[in-house]
Every structure is written in C-alpha cells, then in structure tokens.
C-alpha cells in the first residue's frame, strides 16, 4: 500500500523505531532541507567508541521515516567504525528495497549517520570526518 513500498518499509513507517530526540545525545547530525521535502536528524549516544543508543526525527515521506528508523536500528551497538561502513545500500537491503524514486532517502539516511558521528568526533576530539562533499544525489534540491 502506498508508493509500492515493501512490507518492511511500511512496517518501519507505521511503527517507527527510535523516534524523537535523545535528551543528552553525544552527537546530532542533520541533513537535507525543507525545500527538498526531506530533513533527517539522527541522534547518537556513544560510550567507549560504541553507539549505545540512537534516535531520529524526520520531516519527509514514508521512505524518509523508514530509512531513519532502520538506520538508527542498524547502528545501535556498533562501533563508530562499523557504523561508518553502513551504506545506503545496506539500509535499503534491510528494508527489502525501495522504489527507484526513493533511493535518495537511503542516501540521506547514510549521510545523517555520518553527520551525527562527525558531530560527536568534532565535539570530543576536535577533528571531524574527512569531507565527502555533496554526493549530488538529491536531484530535487535544485542545486545540482
């Protein structure tokens, strides 16, 4: 039902995991913009280099919500290094796929994880992740 989403996507949209702010988050990453119609905000708590908790807020379509839900699930319990290896493909696969027009959402979710980890690293070590630059995937933002 709706946009040819998989059962998994609909499940994570209808019953999203890890919704809301983490009050005392160690890192917060926000990507996307309202103009595009997608904003994702990922919160992480980190202890001994391990992501002990994660949550998100999202303004966006069903896929945006579902990818955030899945992404935060995937990184929980992972080390920062492990979390950084989680690609948009991994998020998509975990959701049994996404419709072609919605693939950018999984890219945004990956970027949101990176942004949150970057935020944590900057705060704790003063040094962030190497710049990746815009991947230009969000064809709708009008900038690319």
């Amino acid at each position: 039902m709706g946009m040819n989403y998989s059962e998994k996507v609909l499940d994570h949209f209808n019953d999203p995991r890890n919704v809301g702010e983490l009050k005392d988050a160690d890192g917060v990453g926000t990507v996307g913009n309202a103009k595009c119609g997608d904003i994702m905000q990922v919160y992480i708590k980190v202890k001994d280099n391990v992501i002990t908790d994660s949550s998100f807020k999202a303004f966006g379509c069903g896929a945006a919500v579902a990818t955030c839900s899945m992404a935060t699930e995937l990184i929980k319990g992972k080390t920062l290094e492990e979390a950084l290896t989680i690609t948009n493909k991994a998020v998509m696969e975990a959701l049994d796929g996404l419709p072609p027009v919605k693939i950018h959402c999984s890219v945004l979710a990956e970027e949101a994880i990176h942004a949150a980890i970057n935020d944590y690293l900057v705060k704790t070590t003063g040094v962030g992740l190497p710049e990746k630059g815009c991947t230009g995937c969000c064809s709708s933002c009008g900038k690319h």
Partner: protein
Amino acid sequence: MNTAIYLDHNATTYVDPKVVDAMLPYFTEKFANPSSIYSISEEVQADIQTARETIQNLLHAKNGKIIFTGGGSESDNLAIKGYAYANQSKGKHIITSQIEHHAVIHTCEQLEKEGFTVTYVPVDDKGVVKIEELKKAIKQDTILITIMYANNETGVIQPIEEIIKIAHQTKIAVHSDAVQIIGKKEINIETLDIDLLSFSAHKFYGPKGVGGLFVKKGIKINNIIQGGGQEFKLRAGTENTAGIVGTAKALEIAMQNWKEEWDKEKKLRDELEKSLLSLIPESQVNGHLENRLANTLNIIIKYVEGESMLLLLNSNKIYASSGSACTSGSLDPSHVLLAMGIPHEHAHGSLRFSLGKKNTKEDIAKVIEVLPGIINRLRAMSPLYKGGK
C-alpha cells in the same frame, strides 16, 4: 470498498452504473464501425451524433462543435497545438498561467521548442490569475490565451469571463481547460463566447480515456492525429463509441441536479475545512475561499510532509491526495502552490480532499476524527516542529 472513504474525486471518479449500462450495448451488439455504410453502422453513427448533441445542449454549445478525443490531456493538446499551428501566420505568442495542468504547461513548453513564445502569467496568493499581468502580457503577435477554468489542486475558479472579454478586444482566441468544472457546475459556452474548451469524462462519473473539445464556429484548428476523416477530420481513429455514449450519459446525469450536489458537497467540505482548521494548529486553506469548486479543500499543515500524511490516512482507508495525482509520485512540490507564493517546506505539507456524490457526513466525521492524531504523530517526529515542546 466497505468502509473506505474516497476523497480524491478531482483525480478521478468511479463510473456511474447508469453510465456503464448506457455503454454496454456498444461493446457487443451495437459494435459496428460508425464509418461503415450498412444499417447497423448508421445506428451507431446516429447515436454518436445524439451524444454530441446532448453534450451541446447541456453545455449550451450550439455555436460550435464537440470533437471527441482520447481524454482531457489530448483535448488540451489538440486545442493549443491545433490552434497554434493553424493560426501561426497571425502570430506566435501564447499566454497561459503558472497554475495550469501539465497537459497545458508541457504543451506550451513543446510549442516553445518549436519557435512559439509563451508567457506564463502569475497568480496571486489566493491562486487567481493576475488579470493586470495578463493584460500586460498581450502583444501584437499574441494569438491564444489558454487559462484553466478551475484549478485541479485548489479548486479556484478563474475569471474566465473577464479574460475572454479582454482577449476578444484584440481578436485573441481563448481556450480553457475546463476539465475540473464541467460536470460540477452548469457552464454556458455560448454566453461565455469562449473559442475552445476541454473536458474529460472521468472527472464527472464517465469513463477514462475519452474527452471532448468544444470548437467555436469559425475557429480554425489543425488536427494533431492524422488518418481517417473521423470527428470532422480533427481526430482520426475509429470512434470510441461506448466511451462517447458514456460521456454524454454521464454529463446528462451530472447536469440533472448539479446545484443540489454542489450545495451538498459544499456543506460537507465547509464542515471538514472548519473542523480541521480549528483542530490542527498552524494549518491554512490554500486558494480563494469563495471562488472555488464546492468539492475541493486544499489545506497546508505545517511541519509535516504530504506523503506521510497520505500513507497514514491510507492506513485508515481514507484516500486523498497531495498535489496533483500525476506528480504525487515525484519529489517536487506542487507548482500550483509554489506559484501562489507558498514556501517549499509548506507546499510539501499540502493535502487535497475532493468530494464526490457518495460522500457522507460520516466520511467527513471520520477524517476529522483521524487526521489530527496523524498530524500530532508526524509533528512529534518532525525536526521542523517546535510547537510541541
């Protein structure tokens, strides 16, 4: 459909069972090709003629002819390209608006590629075409003004009478995409004195894949599909007899009591509008509150995104739309709302409810019951929403 609540009649309607009944004989018994010369063909040909006259009577369109086409989009293409090609010796400038359906906008863009120039007149914040801008856009070589009668997303009715008066002062022809208003309200084509007017059967409980174009006497258009001499040589192809007869029947039914239907839907729509506005903070109606189709409510709900709302409404078996049906699969917010000056982030949060004949008070009550909870839930997870804190 059981308890399903369909509130997307501007996207399409079901076919009235009486219309289906009227169509059925043309599949199996009265199946002959209307262009053949034997008796059973002549009957069918006569029935097409009767359908044409029925529509002409209902639309008060005896000052011209009705061409049957393969739908509203084709009618728009035929009107605009057909007029442009046939009259390009007089000039190559066309005026339209920023809020037209894609069938008009993309057709105009196509003509631009072919050397025509097009002015896309803006609208005000109520979604009404700015008449002063339209006047200013008129040039020496303007041959056609094409402005929709009622907008599909907001339901806003455009000042077509005025536009026609202005255009005719300098002998410019006027086309109107009337797809959203035909069948909902009585239109008098002859009094209007409009030159070209498109409609589509599936917007008024007729079949999909059949539409019509009114062409005023004396207005010359080229055909855009060449072949046999059907439809006054303006639309080649064996006639969709069942569809044509169904279109006439559907319009007949629609016009029988359009006023009561209009009033009934208006009452329900107003109730929905009032309740949602009062129950959902930071929501607003898009478009002119008065000059509007009685069945249409376009509402912006800030800080939430349209598709999410539709999915959660869908879970409640409530079917509505966000932006137009054609673009709701894409990422771009509605060009209509943007043209009205609504910021992108708010345009993403628009919902369109469009009512129809079977909708009841209970349907509306259900939406009023369900939607605020959906909004609360989505706003709670929206990084844009600070109100909840």
